[in-house]
């Protein structure tokens, strides 16, 4: 029962803050709502027994991405002297397409039987993730390190000060 209550609270927070992210007029407020949405997702991860992923989510997303986005807003808006307002366009078409996609997903979900109870996890989940990363998935893991390095170097190159 407590799981249902926790899920309901988290789902409410997540959907509400996600709506605020896409509808808020103030771009800075949208970023703060995104921080709440990402924190809510970390809560969902905790509910799914993924403590390690919840910590990664908080550190990388809520810590890293929010900082970068706030920095980008400050750089682009402060210089141009405009206010932080932003608007949406083609709301009708966007809402229609999103609703169609949502209906399609609902149809697929309704058609397929899904597990109603969660199986017991054999052993410690964080340990299982760590072992999988360094044994079976070690090649993608190393490629990911190269990708992140090149990505961040590229970002620094793009955003370097003009000389």
């Amino acid at each position, binding site marked *: 029962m407590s799981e*249902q209550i926790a899920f309901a609270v988290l789902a409410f927070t997540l959907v509400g803050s996600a709506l605020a992210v896409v509808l808020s007029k103030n*771009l800075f407020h949208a970023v703060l709502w995104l921080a709440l949405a990402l924190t809510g*997702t970390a809560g*969902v991860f905790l509910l799914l027994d993924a403590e390690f992923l919840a910590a990664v989510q908080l550190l990388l997303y809520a810590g890293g991405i929010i900082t970068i*986005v706030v920095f980008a807003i400050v*750089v682009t808006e402060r210089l141009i002297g405009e206010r932080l307002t*932003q608007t949406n366009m083609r709301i009708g078409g966007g809402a229609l397409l*999103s609703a169609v996609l949502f209906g399609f997903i609902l149809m697929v979900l309704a058609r397929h039987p899904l597990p109603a109870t*969660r199986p017991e996890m054999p052993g410690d989940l964080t340990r299982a993730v760590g072992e999988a990363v360094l044994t*079976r998935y070690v090649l993608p893991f190393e490629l990911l390190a190269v990708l992140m390095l090149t990505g961040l170097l590229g970002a620094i190159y793009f955003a370097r000060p003009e000389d």
Partner: protein
Amino acid sequence: MGLQPYLLLSATVFCIGLFGVMTRRNTIGILLGIELMMNAVNINLVAFARYTAVASGMVFTVFTICITVTEAALGLAIVILLFRVRRTVMADHLDLLKG
């Protein structure tokens, strides 16, 4: 509690993110919508991993989180560069490739 509520939640967040990507005029707002969509995908991956008791899904979540962070850093660097060249971050003003 079954798997279905988690998938429903993730589908809802994904569609909200899609709505944001399609309607926002500010490039940074579009990037925020993409972050929401990636987030929904992560919820899906973790939920399936937990309900099938296989750790692989969580490993892939670690990968997607890292890729999303790289994508956000690169995307925002491009936004800053665009701003320097064109003095605007509104997506409908960036129509240089329009015929």
